[in-house]
């Protein structure tokens, strides 16, 4: 098993320059960390030449402390039953990538969502502007510096009278005939 994963990794290393790679034996998984400029060629190579035909998922993780956005593609080879996680990093201020939906057509939908939720620009993407949010003029909502509770409190107003659940606790205590302990008396929403 380890030999098979190493063989795959070495064949990729010959053709592309990898920043780093990791194995996970239990889950039959290889992690590849590569640079942004060689993403489309490595995905083509993995799909056509190495048999990783099935795109399971594509995702974005926001690492605010390091100032980078990480884009991840998850591929699966149906014959050898091995999965590959291809990871690359983009700068947060200037997040740009090439359009990739000529490799797998369903990436069109993923790219529309990443553009709306994270603000990543895909050069050459052809799609209508709005996908999920309508008339949204704030910052991209899934970034970690957007505070959703403060936004909700500001724009929508909540029903008053239930700021803490004191009436619930007192009703339950009266019904079961027991005392509210001291540590529970200070709870509020």
């Amino acid at each position, binding site marked *: 098993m380890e030999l098979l994963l190493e063989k795959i990794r070495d064949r990729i290393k010959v053709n592309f320059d990898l920043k780093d790679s990791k194995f996970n034996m239990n889950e039959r998984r290889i992690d590849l960390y590569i640079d942004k400029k060689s993403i489309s060629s490595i995905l083509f190579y993995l799909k056509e030449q190495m048999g990783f035909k099935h795109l399971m998922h594509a995702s974005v993780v926001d690492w605010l402390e390091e100032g980078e956005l990480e884009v991840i593609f998850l591929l699966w080879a149906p014959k050898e039953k091995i999965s590959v996680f291809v990871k690359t990093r983009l700068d947060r201020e200037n997040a740009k990538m090439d359009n990739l939906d000529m490799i797998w057509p369903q990436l069109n939908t993923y790219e529309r969502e990443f553009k709306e939720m994270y603000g990543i620009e895909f050069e050459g993407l052809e799609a209508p502007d709005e996908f999920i949010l*309508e*008339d949204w*003029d704030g910052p991209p909502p899934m970034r970690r510096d957007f505070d959703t*509770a403060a*936004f909700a409190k500001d*724009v*929508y*107003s909540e*029903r008053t009278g239930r700021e803490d659940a004191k009436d619930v606790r007192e009703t339950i205590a009266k019904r079961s005939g027991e005392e509210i302990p001291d540590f529970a008396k200070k709870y509020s929403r």
Partner: protein
Amino acid sequence: MYYDKTQDRLTEIIKNFARKHSLWILAYGTGCGAIEVPATMTSRYDAERLGVRGAATPRQADVLLITGYLTVKTLKRVIRVYEQMQDPKYVIGFGSCAINGGMYWDSYNTIKQLDLYLPVDVYISGCMPRPEAVLQGFGKLQSLIKEGKADGARKYKDELDYYRGNQQKIIKNWDFPDYNW
């Protein structure tokens, strides 16, 4: 419908009797709770013995069942559908998300209090409400109609400025037609 003081009392009692035994629900599943509505209509919890059945278009419906949370995009369509329904009409708020936002209390896309945008007659609590709770909610609506207190439609017409003010605060692209009542 509201207690119309220009009519005599006997006509109003007969009209309310007819209205409360024939409540048609609009076929619009706005949220999660729409999965318990087919179960309420079929053989175990039969709601058709109370006169409740589905209606296809807003012009043919009496009750708008807001099943669960409402996002801002859906709220725009729901207001338009509500204004197309004809008197007498009622609104039932279904689930805890219609009461005070439910478990999406800190989400940037759902509204927290349905009462500010549409006049609600009956709330049914639960997440999600059981079919027995839905039938009890309809029973409560029927008793409100009998007493002449289910007057959400008249309230919407009289206090239109209050509701429009709240709606325009969160809906940015306002392109509604101007109905002159």
